């Protein structure tokens, strides 16, 4: 990293690039809104950031599909996309950087030496541990090796995506590569999980911004996710919630209920047990989110979401969870929603779903018997 970049403040860099104070306030105002801060806090954040120095960031990609990086770099307009790269100094990212081979590895070594104890490590992808970690190697070294070495001098680790946060797709049963989340391998550094498959780009940048602004790890939930973005369920903030409360559910993807925009609970929506900001931040620059496009939430920001049964089975059928049951937190959440909004409605939906499950179980048993015959 050129030395001037380490010394100059973010404000000096913005001035050099002709980005006005008002333009930066606009960006910070948008970010403050995402962090559930009052919109006017964006002004204070802008002043604080302008005075701060850009932290060095090392971005490591392991067992992943690059969807998370795509999410970060392709979903904003170019001006906003660039803004985060004005706030951080991205010193190593083997997917994005022009350098390759020894030069690329040298960039990582240099960034680590120059900023030891202060740099941020962003990890994208799970880490394979089976068979000596051979399923993911770069420059002749395993992902376990690279992660362990890079983590040593880090101020904190930000896991971007469900793979690095919770294992994600590689971790799904039967997990042939022995994939592990970062938190299973690194125990002595603060870890912030920004889960999602992929995470919302504004949530990734917002988490990084929050760290740069305050220099501290934000408040985290029990899965180490920033509470500002993961403090509410999709269901808490869903615009279809009035229909859930009134017991109006779409039963198929093309019925009258679906056309009227009714609740997708019975089509398998995992919104009530999924913590993320999709319902408010939305996707593609605030255009829409899956539920708004008529598809139930898959629950992609929750641990083990690939192994929690069908995406199209209602939560009340009890297939959500590795053991085939809701977690106590999930159950409490659903129960809470029912209590707040009319137990009769939710109980009716649950009974209906239970009835459907019986039908399904009967179908399966009949099919099995036929197979045996």
């Amino acid at each position: 990293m050129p030395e001037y970049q380490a010394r100059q403040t973010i404000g000096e860099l913005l001035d050099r690039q002709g980005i006005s104070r008002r333009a930066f306030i606009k960006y910070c105002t948008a970010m403050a809104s995402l962090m559930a801060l009052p919109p006017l806090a964006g002004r204070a954040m802008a002043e604080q950031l302008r005075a701060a120095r850009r932290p060095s960031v090392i971005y490591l990609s392991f067992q992943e599909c690059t969807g998370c990086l795509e999410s970060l770099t392709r979903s904003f307009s170019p001006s906003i996309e660039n803004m985060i790269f004005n706030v951080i100094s991205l010193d190593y990212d083997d997917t994005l950087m022009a350098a390759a081979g020894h030069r690329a590895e040298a960039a990582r070594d240099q960034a680590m030496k120059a900023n030891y104890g202060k740099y941020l490590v962003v990890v994208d992808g799970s880490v394979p541990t089976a068979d000596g970690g051979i399923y993911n190697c770069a420059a002749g070294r395993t992902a376990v090796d690279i992660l362990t070495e890079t983590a040593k001098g880090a101020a904190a680790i930000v896991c971007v995506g469900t793979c690095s946060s919770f294992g994600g797709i590689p971790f799904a049963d039967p997990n042939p590569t022995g994939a592990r989340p970062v938190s299973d391998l690194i125990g002595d550094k603060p870890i912030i999980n920004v889960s999602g498959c992929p995470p919302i780009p504004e949530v990734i940048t917002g988490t990084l911004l929050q760290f740069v602004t305050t220099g501290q790890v934000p408040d985290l939930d029990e899965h180490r996710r920033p509470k500002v973005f993961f403090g509410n369920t999709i269901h808490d903030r869903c615009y279809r919630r009035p229909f859930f409360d009134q017991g109006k559910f779409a039963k198929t993807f093309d019925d009258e209920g679906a056309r009227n925009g009714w609740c997708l609970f019975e089509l398998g929506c995992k919104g009530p047990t999924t913590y993320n900001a999709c319902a408010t931040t939305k996707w593609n620059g605030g255009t829409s989110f899956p539920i708004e496009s008529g598809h139930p939430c898959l629950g992609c920001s929750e641990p083990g979401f690939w192994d929690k049964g069908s995406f199209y089975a209602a939560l009340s059928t009890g297939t959500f969870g590795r053991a085939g049951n809701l977690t106590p937190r999930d159950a409490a959440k659903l129960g809470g929603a029912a209590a707040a909004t009319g137990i009769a409605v939710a109980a009716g939906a649950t009974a209906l779903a239970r009835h459907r499950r019986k039908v399904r179980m009967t179908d399966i048993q009949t099919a099995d018997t036929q197979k045996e015959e």
Partner: protein
Amino acid sequence: MSRLGDIPIRIERPDFAAMAGTIGGGVTAILAEIAALLDRLAAGDEPQAIDLKSLPMNPGDREQLIEALGSGEVAITLYADGESTIRETGVHGVWWTEHRDGDGEVTAAFIEIARVPGILIVDSDELQRGAERLRSAIGATRSSE
């Protein structure tokens, strides 16, 4: 038809009377909050804002709110990394602000309760930089004479 917003959708309005106190029926609550913030501003408190993006509003709610506030005397366009519009509503001191990025997408939308929208106020550094710029322009003109 090039944008999502061009696709016609039918919106069934939920029965707000039946769900008073639940998320989604908040237009009256927003108006009451604005009134309280105006009182506080008049009494010497700091300006405040209500974030419109984080409220789970139906498209219908938004229209209701716009209608209730009405339109006022001042409309400002800010050109800073995308176009922003700041309009005073029919209620003095209540500003409807929408920031857009270079592609015209709304990145922040809020109602600011302030005497003058804060983003318009120039800070001291900028005043000094402006003065320096003018002095160096004068210097350049003189030296070329």
